[in-house]
């Protein structure tokens, strides 16, 4: 996504376009722009030089192959591109993405919280000052969800401070065909991680080579790493971590690393955890960290209002409100939505300039539709946190009365089996929103559901337990035998999640009135771990002393030898040979340790609880 954005900047921001837009802007806008224009163009220049460099390299390579082809290609490309532009231009003027058009150019315009901006600015200012030997670290980690303005903030601050921004040249991912083509030409493939490592290495050793960026060498430099290379697997991840660690320790140029958080939705998601770990390791290495919160609805609204004024669009406060709320703190998304929303009204606008009232009516109509909420075209897909979804399932909120008329012809169920309609979306939809993995969902439900049953309802407990058992069966069916990406497996998995969730919803026929509950992490996971480690311990122990023992069944060891050893306990140390005694001692100790660790973990869990209140 970041890549895409960057590309569009490059292509669209030719100088003429800039000129085109200037008259559109309000006076304050131009003023602010003119103030900051010189450093900005500088940074642009750098960017462009960089990109054209990479492109020319590419061209060279391909020109070896076939000049004509490239020519054709570029022609085609241009044609297509201008074609696109032309169609967009039909509306009024040459269109640009509003996101880029109304990019903030001064600190005041940033929608990010003032304090955060100030914090980042101060940080850079301190490091850009000539006497900069006082600071040990030169790395700043900025985290935040997508579209809160991380990159923009850095850009603006850099231009404010008159610094040049030097970015890591994110390499374009290579597709397989490309790779084949390249390897035929003799171009070696280097992994993106390798490239990144080389880059960091260079930075560490030589700093930035001034002449390569621009001629005037006085302007301070800020290094921006926006896109960390994707790592797959532990090894690569370890390399990346090490590499970043080195960077933190030895960077001399103020460096900003941007990390996009993908929400708190996925507990089980591996990549999210990786990112988190990465951030932690960066911090522990001494990097400074600033977390950007989602942009507040108010500041989004302000920006939207301003843009709509500049664009001379009639817009109701409700609509702005709606868009701002739906964007979920993603300002980029909000602006794009606004632009999208005005594509159609714009046409209306130009057609019926004479009658403004009709437009507002139109808008209102549109708004009414929106109010119904059947299609919020511009809303971000809502995501729920896993805990939120679990809370929904466990609290099991239902309507107080059944809508008789609708249901009667549909499906007649017995008195005992009938349930009131749910006060939520279909459980499967909620699951989708929460990105729930079936196995953890089942485990979580199993761990927590008993707390949500009423005191006397043991029958309900049985129903729920039985359905969870069904889910377990479904989850276990193809264990390890069919490939993980098998279609059938996927269906089974989602069916299992559905059974688990619906089982819980159905089984809990007398839900408790909602009150505060903490959702625990499944203790089952711990039990599995301890039992595994105990098992390994037993295997090792089997190895240790008794040759006879080593041949016997694990279950026999667990059920028969272990208790006897416990009884024989210390007497064993006198009576038995030394090695055996030590083994049984170890065993005793182990049991103690296990008990302790279980307790410990329990407290740990309660610390880590996510609290759910009544939604």
């Amino acid at each position, binding site marked *: 996504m970041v890549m895409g954005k960057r590309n569009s900047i490059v292509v669209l921001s030719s100088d003429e376009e800039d000129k085109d837009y200037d008259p559109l802007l309000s006076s304050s806008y131009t003023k602010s722009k003119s103030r900051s224009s010189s450093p900005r163009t500088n940074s642009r220049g750098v960017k462009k030089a960089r990109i054209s460099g990479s492109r020319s390299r590419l061209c060279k390579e391909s020109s070896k192959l076939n000049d004509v082809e490239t020519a054709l290609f570029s022609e085609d490309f241009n044609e297509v591109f201008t074609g696109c532009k032309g169609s967009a231009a039909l509306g009024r003027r040459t269109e640009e993405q509003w996101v880029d058009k109304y990019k903030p150019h001064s600190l005041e315009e940033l929608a990010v919280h003032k304090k955060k901006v100030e914090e980042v600015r101060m940080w850079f200012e301190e490091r850009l000052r000539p006497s900069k030997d006082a600071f040990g670290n030169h790395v700043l980690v900025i985290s935040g969800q997508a579209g809160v303005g991380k990159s923009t903030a850095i850009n603006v601050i850099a231009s404010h401070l008159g610094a040049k921004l030097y970015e890591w040249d994110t390499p374009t991912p290579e597709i397989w065909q490309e790779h084949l083509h390249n390897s035929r030409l003799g171009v070696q493939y280097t992994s993106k991680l390798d490239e990144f490592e080389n880059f960091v290495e260079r930075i560490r050793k030589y700093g930035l080579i001034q002449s390569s960026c621009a001629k005037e060498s006085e302007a301070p430099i800020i290094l921006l790493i926006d896109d960390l290379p994707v790592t797959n697997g532990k090894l690569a991840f370890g390399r990346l971590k090490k590499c970043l660690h080195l960077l933190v320790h030895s960077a001399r140029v103020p460096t900003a690393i941007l990390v996009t958080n993908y929400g708190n939705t996925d507990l089980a998601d591996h990549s999210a955890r990786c990112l988190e770990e990465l951030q932690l390791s960066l911090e522990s290495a001494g990097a400074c960290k600033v977390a950007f919160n989602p942009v507040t609805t108010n500041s989004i609204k302000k920006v939207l209002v301003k843009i709509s004024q500049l664009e001379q669009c009639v817009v109701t406060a409700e609509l702005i409100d709606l868009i701002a709320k739906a964007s979920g703190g993603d300002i980029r998304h909000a602006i794009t939505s606004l632009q999208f929303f005005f594509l159609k009204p714009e046409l209306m606008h130009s057609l019926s300039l004479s009658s403004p009232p009709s437009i507002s009516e139109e808008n209102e109509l549109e708004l009414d539709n929106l109010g119904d909420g059947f299609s919020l075209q511009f809303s971000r897909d809502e995501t729920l946190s896993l805990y939120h979804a679990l809370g929904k399932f466990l609290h099991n909120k239902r309507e107080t009365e059944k809508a008789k008329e609708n249901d009667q012809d549909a499906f007649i169920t017995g008195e005992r089996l009938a349930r009131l309609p749910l006060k939520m979306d279909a459980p499967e939809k909620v699951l989708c929103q929460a990105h729930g993995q079936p196995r953890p969902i089942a*485990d979580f439900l199993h761990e927590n559901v008993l707390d949500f049953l009423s005191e006397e309802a*043991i029958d309900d407990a049985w129903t729920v337990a039985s359905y969870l058992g069904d889910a377990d069966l479904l989850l*276990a069916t193809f264990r390890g035998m069919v490939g993980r990406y098998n279609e059938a497996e996927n269906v089974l998995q989602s069916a299992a999640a559905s059974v688990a969730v619906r089982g819980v919803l159905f089984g809990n026929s007398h839900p408790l009135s909602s009150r505060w509950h903490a959702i625990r992490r499944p203790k089952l996971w711990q039990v599995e771990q301890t039992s595994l480690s*105990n098992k390994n311990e*037993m295997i090792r122990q089997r190895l240790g002393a008794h040759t006879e023992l080593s041949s016997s069944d694990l279950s026999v060891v667990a059920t028969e030898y272990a208790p006897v050893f416990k009884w024989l306990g210390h007497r064993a140390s006198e009576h038995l040979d030394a090695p*055996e005694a030590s083994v049984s001692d170890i065993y005793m100790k182990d049991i103690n340790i296990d008990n302790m660790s279980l307790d410990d973990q329990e407290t740990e869990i309660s610390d880590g609880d996510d609290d759910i209140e009544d939604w």
Partner: protein
Amino acid sequence: MLWLDKYRPKTLDRILVHEEIAQNLKKLVTEQDCPHLLFYGPPGSGKKTLIMALIRQMFGPGAEKVKVENRTWKVDAGSRSIDIELTTLSSTNHVELSPSDAGFQDRYVVQEIIKEMAKNRPIDTKGKKGYKVLVLNEVDKLSREAQHSLRRTMEKYSAYCRLILCCNSSSRVTEAIRSRCLNVRINAPSEEQIVKVLEFIGKKEGLQLPPGFASRIAEKSNRSLRRAILSFETCHVQQYPFTSKQAISPMDWEEYISEIASDIMNEQSPKRLYQVRGKLYELLSNCIPPEIILKRLLYELLRKLDVELKHEVCHWAAYYEHRMRLGQKAIFHIEAFVAKFMSIYKDFLITTFG
């Protein structure tokens, strides 16, 4: 050394419990015609003892010099190679291992080891090529694939090695394997036989056994000789000289389960179910197999139960035991059984006592 190991008969002649089988096996081996063997029978009936004695009979006392090894096998499985770590017990003439310890990878283990054994065949004194014996434990816990691959390797390498398979229940061993082996069923020893063994040990140790004491141990042992001897030794540790009224303490996990059972009988509510779950977790994390937990729990519950409920409860126990074997996480199913029991029992209490 535990009495169990100390008084384990080393040769087929000295076997006390299954003399007849031992004599037959001896004849079989001395006639130089040893087929693959499958020993099956309940735990503690003396399968392993017989096997060890049989190997000694085949190769002489040299077979007793075993070394324990934790070996890593590198296995080529299609595109990748897997490292499998497994403990083996081997002498020059035999290798013993429990392939089911390797989990999913068990099939590779079986193939790989047999192939390796075939590569270095021992040469006996007469210059004739001999064979090695591979003892596989817990064959019934092998996955289906592993059993199939075992079948193939059995045929291919039958000239180089003999397999001795050992398991509790032959029904979980595929037909194909069973028909390629000589099946030897080892019954659980009768209580009289156990008493005989205990008295033998008592005499060797020079202990005074009060009358009826050995038979009480035998009774409690569930006809498992191993358990009888272990609890005999425990009793000796706890109190000697023996008294005829001396308590024979059950295994700790059994006590724990009977505690769970009385918890269940005392209160039937989701809250209690949650407490029970905690206790079950305790058992599971100490590696008590879930099947055994469920079985024992049923046993304890039935002891305290009214007759008219027994049938239904047994039915549900069987139902959930089956599902537990199909499923992945045992606790889900054990808990479902407990919940079902609570629900039945609560209904029963309400209808009888109002």
